[in-house]
């Protein structure tokens, strides 16, 4: 059986920096991460999250389906149901407690466009200016 090893250039998914990495792929599985030495953003350095990308991208703990809490425990549902549930609940909370009762956290893992959309949604649709970043957590 031939040796099946290659390195694939990519970008770290974690924060807004976007450090260049090479993933080491052995027999179709991501087994290692190393920094791209000449990438303009990181120039060969990585933070601890960047060094361990190969561990979290294949982690069993990652979310694969939307989950809704039913009868005290989280259950996997379809996307349509999840979106419908989110919309109706946000609407209910806004009517019952007022728009200022809702806060929103955006993320560096989202694209600039997604964060912009979230900001517009928060201000125009929900009617609150309580939007901040997940790093505040």
């Amino acid at each position: 059986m031939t040796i099946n090893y290659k390195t694939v250039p990519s970008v770290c998914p974690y924060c807004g920096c976007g450090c260049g990495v090479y993933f080491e792929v052995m027999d179709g599985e991501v087994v290692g991460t190393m920094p791209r030495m000449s990438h303009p953003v990181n120039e060969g350095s990585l933070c601890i999250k960047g060094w361990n990308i190969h561990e979290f991208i294949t982690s069993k703990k990652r979310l694969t389906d939307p989950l809704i809490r039913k009868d005290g425990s989280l259950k996997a549902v379809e996307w349509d149901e999840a979106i419908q549930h989110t919309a109706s609940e946000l609407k209910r909370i806004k009517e019952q407690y007022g728009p200022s009762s809702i806060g929103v956290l955006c993320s560096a893992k989202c694209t600039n466009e997604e964060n912009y959309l979230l900001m517009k949604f928060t201000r125009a649709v929900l009617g609150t200016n309580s939007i901040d970043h997940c790093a505040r957590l």
Partner: protein
Amino acid sequence: MQRLRNIQPKLSWDTVIYEDMAEIEKTSSVNGFEPKIIGFLCNWCSYAGADLAGGSRKSYPTNVLPIRVMCSGRVSSHHVIKAFQMGADGVLVTGCHLGECHYMKGNYMAAKRVPVIQELLGFIGIEPERLRLEWVAASEGERFASVVTEFSEKIRAMGPSPFRKSE
């Protein structure tokens, strides 16, 4: 490819030594600076020598926290580095005389290791004299007392370690 590394590795027997060393963080100083020295005493020669010093009612300062190890070679660079990080003003490593080690050549490992650690400490800016290696036999109670006295005075003259936690 990164090496396989275990999460939260257990270097188990060392945990006991670190717990013993943690005593140094508890003692509080009275009336100015009292040196806090961690002493690693080898079980067969040095600890017995210290016992003899006590048994013969030899008087010596109480600045050394004695930690019994089976051999001076058991003292790892990690223990010394951690001792200084914890705020110890000095570290004393004592063992059997060369050629008399209970485990034949364990003390040679200490003899090789300590000068290298001293050079590292000196390079970082921690006085290498704060780490000392001495050979004390089981019959040398008086020598043990004089080593501790002399080392404590030396450390007292050098002043507190820069890593001492303020009380």
